């Protein structure tokens, strides 16, 4: 087997699961053990992608997966380079602190490439352009996770907002709703930055409407998250029109659908009207516009008017307008309609809105497999699936990488590799990567940035991780996050002493 020197773009869970599977598949007892090197690049200074900068703070158990990532990172064959933004063309999200690494550099320095850069752009609603009172849910997620892209941006003015309208009924919507409706005294023990808690403590939010264009059977949220909403301490759900909770005759419900229906029928633990805060699931509504305050009728706390078209379901389960409309007075609109990959990533397919792949292998626009180039996770599948599905996909991609690299015989002897290899014929190939590389070499640009302290490695991250937990402990909470300026200062200090 020729050596595998793999560059991975992104250090999210998908990237770590692929790396961990590759490392584990070539253990010290394998003759190929030393023929593997993995360099993981992330544009952020901290690893773990959406596990750090996405997963809701009140779901700390979900983040336990990082222990496996930590274990993988202790293998000297794996190196992490934080703050390195791989760019094909000028970046969409400029991050002042990160070093830019041209894709072409990766091509000439590596034998294999994995695109694992996720789906970082929120999908927008055509009738609801972003403004200071209409923001993507991801901006709020970035705010409460202290994502590097929000450094120095003002927080949402929750002290002035009484009614929030969330467009979209997926789990991210419920994450945001939970953050807005859970008492700060309950949240404060979690991994939520102090400045965020301060804003939440001043919050005037009384009601969150969660609006979806279709019905309860089509809602994307999962039962776990719905149940958490039902059990909120200080909030209750507005009753849902019972006619919407009748299962259409002859409808075959999935297990999840019937359990969702049961939860909705039962309603929230707190009875409506008995709590200081409330929320509602508004089904069969499509936003058609958001009108600014007009001086005559404007209320100070709910100045905006969201117009909604009412829908029904077509035979093929599409939302179709009934012609009826209504309006909703609100203080802020949050759009939560899913995510897509950045169009600037290589082999991006504009129709799919993510990288074009077949069975984990990247395919160019003419249908040729690009030799040695793979994609995994949300970058390859689109923005769907929880960590469990991201993991399963990542393992399959790792097996495919190995199957493509191993001599036939080994491939045949190993079940997983044999099925990953398929029929072994990849069709016509396009080639972009180097054949011969220096196994230990690090690209020039990265070397330079490392020397000036702009790039983090996993050891740096673990030092910061520990320090964040220590600072959190002092405050009686899970951790207190640092931003890059603090982290950099801390690292400089730690390196000197």
């Amino acid at each position, binding site marked *: 087997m020729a050596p595998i020197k793999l560059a991975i773009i992104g250090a999210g869970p998908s990237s770590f699961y692929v790396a961990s599977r590759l490392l584990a598949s070539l253990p010290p007892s394998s003759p190929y053990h030393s023929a593997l090197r993995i360099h993981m690049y992330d544009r952020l200074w901290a690893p773990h992608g959406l596990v750090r900068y996405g997963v809701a703070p009140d779901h700390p158990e979900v983040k336990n997966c990082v222990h496996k990532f930590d274990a993988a990172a202790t293998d000297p064959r794996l190196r992490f380079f934080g703050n390195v933004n791989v760019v094909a063309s000028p970046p969409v999200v400029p991050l002042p602190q990160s070093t830019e690494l041209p894709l072409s550099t990766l091509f000439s320095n590596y034998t294999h490439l994995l695109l694992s850069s996720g789906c970082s752009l929120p999908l927008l609603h055509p009738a609801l352009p972003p403004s200071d009172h209409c923001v993507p849910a991801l901006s709020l997620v970035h705010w409460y996770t202290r994502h590097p892209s929000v450094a120095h941006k003002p927080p949402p003015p929750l002290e002035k907002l009484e009614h929030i309208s969330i467009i979209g009924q997926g789990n991210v919507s419920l994450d945001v709703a939970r953050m807005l409706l859970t008492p700060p005294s309950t949240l404060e023990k979690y991994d939520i930055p102090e400045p965020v808690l301060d804003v939440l403590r001043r919050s005037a939010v009384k009601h969150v409407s969660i609006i979806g264009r279709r019905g309860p059977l089509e809602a994307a949220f999962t039962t*776990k998250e719905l149940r958490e909403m039902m059990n909120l301490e200080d909030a209750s759900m507005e009753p849902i029109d019972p006619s919407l909770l009748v299962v259409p005759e002859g409808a075959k419900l999935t297990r999840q659908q019937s359990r969702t229906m049961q939860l909705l029928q039962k309603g929230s633990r707190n009875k409506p009207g008995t709590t200081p805060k409330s929320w509602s699931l508004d089904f069969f509504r499509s936003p058609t516009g958001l009108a600014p305050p007009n001086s005559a009728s404007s209320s100070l706390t709910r100045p905006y008017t969201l117009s909604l078209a009412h829908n029904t379901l077509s035979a093929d389960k599409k939302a179709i307008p009934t012609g009826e409309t209504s309006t909703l007075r609100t203080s802020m609109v949050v759009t939560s309609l899913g995510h897509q990959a950045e169009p600037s990533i290589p082999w991006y397919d504009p129709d799919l809105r993510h990288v074009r792949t077949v069975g984990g292998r990247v395919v160019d626009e003419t249908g040729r497999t690009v030799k040695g180039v793979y994609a995994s996770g949300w970058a390859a599948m689109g923005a769907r699936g929880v960590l469990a599905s991201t993991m399963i996909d990542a393992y399959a991609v790792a097996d495919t990488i190995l199957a493509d690299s191993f001599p036939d015989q080994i491939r045949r002897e190993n079940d997983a590799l044999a099925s990953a290899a398929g029929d072994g014929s990849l069709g016509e190939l396009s080639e972009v990567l180097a054949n011969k590389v220096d196994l230990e070499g690090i690209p020039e640009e990265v070397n330079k940035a490392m020397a000036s302290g702009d790039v983090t490695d996993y050891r740096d991250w673990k030092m910061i991780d520990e320090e964040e937990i220590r600072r959190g402990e002092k405050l009686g909470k899970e951790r207190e996050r640092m931003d890059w300026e603090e982290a950099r200062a801390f690292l400089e200090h730690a390196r000197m002493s």
Partner: protein
Amino acid sequence: MLHLKSIQTLPETCRRATTSLSLSHVASRSFSRQTIASTRTHRSLDRCRTEWTRHHTRHNLLTSSLSPLYRQSTCRRSLHSTAAPQHGPITRPAPGTGIKVHFKDSKGNLIKTVEANEGDDILSIAHEYDIDLEGACEGSVACSTCHVIVDPEHYDLLPEPEDDENDMLDMAFGLTDTSRLGCQVKLARGLDGITATLPSATRNMFVDGKKPTHH
């Protein structure tokens, strides 16, 4: 080294479900095991316990190359921690005295038959015997990666899954009528001879080019 935290300061719901023990190093094989307190803020007490991250043997080899500082830093402290562990690493019973568990792969081929003690859960047993069952959330009922299919006969003997387990099973791949979360299935004497089959996890589930939906 125990890390104690007064649980009196936590709200009632969370005190009830508080998990145990936070930071302790126990030398084992070639590396130091870590106790990870799973942060459960709800559900019944017996389900909330300390989880042991037993990385598979292959990781033991990797971890042994760590500097002590680095090694310690992989330990996570939890705030929801109390003193006594309710659930530790599992110990193998003397051969012939334990409860038998058969592990099978997705094709139904026997991987291994092992023995464990009453109270041990399928995930911990799998880890003890190096069977490839993932436990991404380390037994906190938050990930569904520990999904196993139980043989119907023994499935009927198990206590009904709780709501939170059912919620996670909703999202498990290759769900069957006798699916359970491995981390929630605890051995009892009557379960001797139970079979846990690992579900088939293939990427066929992901049809390339499907339209994006919310996660």
